[in-house]
């Protein structure tokens, strides 16, 4: 047997024996997602068992080196693992900005000591991280950030304010961009890690148009940060920041293929339910055409993700297509929710209470949430600028 097939057999056997039955069922609501951390909440005790078992094998971070608690899997083995997990509809054991964003950046830029200290608790879901990037005055112009970190000999003293810090109120640590040189823009930024329980840190949730509060304003007043928590060189944090943004954009661009309530619902069956049908056709011809267009665009986008992956694996292609994923994926997801809202009519315009099903309310809230997709992690306009400059070589 080929080694990879042997790996598949072993993986299948292990998953069958170790993935609890309730972890093979669809997510009920957002609360079913496991984020880990000191304040971890498990709606279901089996979610904790599943996390611990997967973390012990390093399979929450399958491709990270074993030295840091990862699974040490090759790309090919990782693909097999995800296929086998999908086969039994296994839930993702751990959702984490540490896994998706910080970890890959630490593997590339951090010191050996830092990797040993920070990576294993991410794998085990013990420490939940948040991202301190945007500021009130630094959105698309991220490098204009003003949060200061002053050198005080044995520590840095951090003062300033971040915004749109996802789950800052629930996170244990923050990876934070700070200004360490006010005389330069990009070359005056450093990448700092610190504990959110440090004196002087305050996170205030922001109520969004969807009614939820996933983002915070985060204030730093004379926060003392040990010097060993600087990642990479002083004033060279922008390089790390940009690389981490790539990981973030990859994470967000997957949304074009659906996330949020109703993302797995079929537009056409919803339309048949809410509009009725004539001889198997959606009763509204105009809506039918819009749905066809949406489905065709989504299929074309999925094929493009697949093509890029195959080209990368074969070592060909420029990878240029990946620069459009964040832009196209998020715009596609927004159009999908607009279409869902049109399909639901006034049933899609309820806020709460009686008269609306939980799914209807969920779709409405997800429609509102989806508006942020083309803003967070680099606006659509910034993405188009990146394509124009880096891919097409157009002048500034």
């Amino acid at each position, binding site marked *: 047997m080929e080694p990879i097939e042997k790996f598949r057999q072993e993986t299948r056997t292990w998953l069958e024996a170790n993935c609890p039955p309730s972890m093979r069922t669809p997510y009920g609501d957002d609360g079913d997602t496991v984020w880990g951390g000191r304040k971890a909440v498990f709606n279901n005790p089996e979610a904790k068992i599943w996390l611990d078992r997967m973390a012990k094998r390093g399979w929450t971070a399958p491709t990270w080196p074993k030295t840091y608690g990862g699974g040490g899997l090759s790309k090919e083995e990782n693909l097999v693992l995800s296929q086998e997990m999908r086969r039994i509809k296994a839930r993702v054991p751990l959702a984490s900005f540490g896994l998706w964003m910080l970890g890959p950046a630490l593997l590339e830029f951090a010191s050996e000591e830092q990797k040993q200290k920070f990576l294993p608790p991410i794998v085990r879901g013990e420490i939940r991280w948040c991202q301190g990037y945007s500021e009130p005055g630094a959105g698309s112009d991220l490098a204009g950030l003003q949060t200061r970190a002053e050198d005080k000999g044995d520590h840095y003293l951090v003062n300033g304010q971040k915004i749109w810090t996802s789950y800052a109120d629930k996170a244990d640590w923050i990876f934070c961009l700070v200004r360490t040189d006010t005389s330069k823009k990009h070359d005056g930024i450093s990448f700092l890690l610190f504990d959110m329980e440090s004196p002087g840190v305050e996170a205030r949730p922001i109520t969004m148009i969807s009614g939820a509060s996933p983002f915070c304003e985060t204030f730093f007043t004379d926060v003392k940060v040990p010097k060993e928590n600087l990642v990479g060189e002083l004033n060279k944090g922008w390089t790390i920041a940009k690389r981490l943004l790539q990981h973030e954009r990859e994470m967000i661009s997957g949304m074009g293929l659906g996330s949020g309530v109703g993302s797995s619902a079929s537009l*056409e069956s919803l*339309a*048949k339910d809410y509009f009725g*049908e004539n001889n*198997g*056709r*959606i009763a509204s011809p105009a809506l*039918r*055409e819009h*749905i*066809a*267009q949406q*489905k*065709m*665009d989504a*299929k*074309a*986008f999925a*094929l*493009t993700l*697949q*093509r890029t992956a*195959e*080209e990368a*694996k*074969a070592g*060909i292609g420029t990878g*240029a*297509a990946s620069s*459009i994923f964040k*832009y*196209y994926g998020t715009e596609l997801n927004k159009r999908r929710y607009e279409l869902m809202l049109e399909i639901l009519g006034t049933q899609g315009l309820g806020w709460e209470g009686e008269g609306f099903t939980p799914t209807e309310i969920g779709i409405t809230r997800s429609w509102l949430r989806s508006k942020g997709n083309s803003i967070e992690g680099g606006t659509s*306009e910034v*993405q*188009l*600028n990146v*394509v*124009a400059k880096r*891919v*097409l*070589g*157009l*002048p*500034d």
Partner: protein
Amino acid sequence: MAFVLTEEQQLLRDTATQFFQQRVPLSNLRHLRDTKDPYGFDRSVWKEMADLGFAGILTPEQYGGTDFGPVGLGLVLEQSGRTLAASPLISTVLLCGAIVQLAGSATQRQDILPTIAAGETIMALALEEGPHHNPTHIATTAAANGASFRISGKKTFVLDGHIADKLIVAARTSGKYDDKSGVTLFIVDPKAEGVSITRTHMVDSRNAANISFDKVAVGEDDILGSIDGGSDVLEQVLDIARIGISAEMLGSIQEVFDTTVEYLKERKQFGVPIGSFQGLKHRIADLFAEIELCRSVVLDGLAALEARRNDVPQIASLTKARLSDTARNMTNEGLQMRGGMGMTDQFDIGLFMKRARVAAATFGDANFHRDRYASLEGF
């Protein structure tokens, strides 16, 4: 790995690229147009294309073809689209060759396929009867008369119709207008009594004709496939043609995109290249995204044909709709971004725009295919 070319396919693409750039540059189409060339394409070029194996690309080796398959044909068509090369690839190879291969008897295949592969026989499919593509809107009849038939009716937009050595005609042997069943395919000699052919001059300077049939006599031997069974053959062949012409459009779109980006870098206004203006940057970057998606669907469509996947009809409609829309948008934007010069005949953008519209209308436009896609998907 459907999206990664084999070495043989890469070689074919390189050969095709070089051939069209050197032997059939865009000036070739201008020359054909300006001299009102009676053939509408360059016969010696077609012979060279046959010698390179392009004409027999879908034909098995036993009939003298190269059998490179749909992916190979797509690569050649894409490159032909870059220079707007006029040739009988669509009429003779994509449509008629595929029909004969699919539905022809052993004798018909032996008679016809080798001469197509050799570049000797030009064929045309007489299908459409109205201004909008519709394979079941057939009023032309073939009335049984003993063992023979008499074809009567009017066909329009017959690609390469006025120079074809043989015609394939879709006519009703039963059923009524718009019925899927009852259509039969006949091989008809364009010189037969009762056939009247008028060349139509289209905006893209490519060949088309209106053809009327007045009690044209055909025999049993001229039937392709089974009586009343033509629609199934047509659907399969039209899907090949839809994906094939999409590959051609992809080449044209890419050419217009590339030259437009160059123009944005070169053309200066207010003392700076116009490509530095964000109003243009965002539009061209958005088109970049759309074109990347176009490339993915064309490659997947060709791979679907090659693997005889059962979702060929869906991917054919998806591909034809997306490429038709993007070809329109790209040529519109390409013209607008060139300003007044884009309106002149001297600039090539107008030629690409004209071809984009004809190609979009050929084998069903985006509206036709969105509707078909929805039906195929069960809504």
